[in-house]
């Protein structure tokens, strides 16, 4: 029995090095009566990729989706704590969740292009924000940044659904960055992709962090070592009958994988978790 398995365990706070864009402090996250996540401090640093790893059900996706209030769409969801974004609490009483999501964009596990043309998919968010400038140019720029332009430039009028899975995911990334959000949340963006497409998306992420701040949930620990600058390891506490996730350890990726402080982290990354 180690310390981290007890339900009172709280991870040492991670002292961020760079500027913190989103300072997420979870006290409790509930779905109805079910306590999904407790006591986790997750600062997201600017122009870095923060990786969230951990076993299934540990709440890493829940925490990620709390950052831009995507969980608000689930009626029984309740968040206790604060998500400070540029000095404002995302969960503040006057905050409009719709506006939060325009600054903090999202890429999902399953590629989810709209059933419209490739061009319209990318232009969607720009039109939503009544963008007045040169739409063609912005669409091209977004597709170029998403490393998709060369593959689709001759078929922009084709349906977004006609692309392959990896192309669809890059299209979704292009759609998300077309409106130039500040932060991009990625919820297992490569889990539905083959290794080649995964590689392309990972290269894209490394390129994107120059302009954006990224947070990435992944089941693939190699992926975390390849792209994440900082890694947060979550685990789930089932010893007391519940299934409550919590942060175990957060730190620079190299430290988490090479010299983890917690036994639980060590077990997980070496594949010895129960």
């Amino acid at each position, binding site marked *: 029995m180690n310390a981290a398995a007890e339900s009172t365990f709280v991870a040492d706070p991670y002292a961020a090095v760079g500027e913190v864009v989103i300072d997420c402090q979870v006290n409790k996250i509930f779905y109805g009566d079910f306590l999904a996540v407790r006591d986790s401090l997750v600062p997201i640093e600017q122009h870095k990729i923060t990786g969230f790893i951990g076993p299934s059900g540990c709440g890493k996706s829940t925490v990620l989706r709390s950052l831009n209030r995507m969980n608000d769409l689930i009626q029984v969801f309740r968040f206790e704590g604060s998500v400070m974004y540029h000095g404002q609490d995302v969960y503040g009483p006057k905050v409009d969740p719709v506006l939060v*999501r325009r600054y903090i964009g999202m890429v999902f596990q399953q590629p989810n292009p709209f059933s419209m043309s490739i061009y319209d998919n990318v232009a969607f968010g720009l039109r939503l924000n009544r963008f007045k400038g040169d739409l063609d140019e912005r669409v091209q720029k977004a597709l170029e940044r998403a490393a998709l332009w060369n593959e689709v430039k001759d078929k922009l009028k084709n349906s977004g659904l006609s692309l392959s899975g990896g192309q669809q995911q890059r299209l979704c990334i292009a759609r998300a960055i077309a409106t130039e959000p500040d932060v991009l949340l990625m919820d297992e963006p490569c889990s539905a992709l083959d290794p080649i497409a995964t590689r392309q998306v990972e290269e894209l992420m490394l390129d994107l962090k120059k302009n954006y701040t990224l947070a990435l949930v992944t089941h693939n620990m190699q992926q975390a070592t390849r792209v994440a600058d900082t890694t947060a390891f979550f685990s789930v506490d089932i010893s007391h009958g519940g299934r409550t996730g919590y942060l175990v350890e957060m730190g620079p990726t190299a430290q988490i994988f090479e010299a983890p402080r917690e036994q639980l982290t060590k077990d997980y990354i070496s594949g010895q978790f129960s």
Partner: protein
Amino acid sequence: MSDFDLTKARETARPMPQLARQGFEARALKSGLLTGLTWLAALLAAVPLISVMYLLLVKGGSRLFGADFAEVLTGLPPAGFELGGGIGPAIVGTLVMVGIASVISIPIGILAAIYLGVLEPRSRLANTSRFLAKVLTGFPSIMAGVFVYAVLVIHWGYSAWAGGIALAVLMLRTVVLAAEEAIAQVPQRMKDAAYGMGCTRTQVIWKVVLPTGLPGILTGVLLAVAGAAGESAPLLFTALFSNYFISELSEPTASLSILIYNFSGMPFPNQIELAWTASLVLVLIVLMFNILARLIGQPKV
């Protein structure tokens, strides 16, 4: 000695398997018989439409595709022993009343479907409303006529309005259920994507849910229109009939189905021939909407 004696050559150890079909085995006969029966049943299912179309083309085709087709399509219905004449008022009347019914039922139906499919799918109101729409599916169409008769016609008389409203009652259930089905089939991940882009709920519905579900919605709408165009019972109590082109929506109005009913019972060959022609026109209108619905409902690649 075991079947798997490896010391002997295979041919001598076990008989060669017989894989060729045995033509007159009981199992093969039964299979052939059942295949034949299903084939026959499939053929029988196609018989009614094909034979009705054949009959209509033979009996009504000569007039519709003959030399005086313009008079048939635009002329007034003939009186007693009069020759010639046409079914113009009935065609216009049917289209007008179906139009009124569509204007009423399509917006209400789609808005209701949005409530049922997106806004509050599990609320008590949604469950009740969905259940009632399904009950309405088995509702005898003549009851829609009786209902509108009791509520409107008694006070304001027979009119195209009343006919249209009766048809709208019948169309509503089809539109609501088909549109809800189409809307519910829009994948949650597409809606998530839209919310993730910073869409309000209204924008998600307008820009993602409705455009994505549109083929399904239009299919439902067109099937409802086709069904309404062929209805006769509800019109009997509400629009009655007229021998003249419609000039006001508040007066009795001709319709194809009632014209068929009226003329087919007359002792004059000219009227009976026109009833056949009207039947053909009505079936062609309904068929057109059905084919249109199929074309629109096909997934686009």
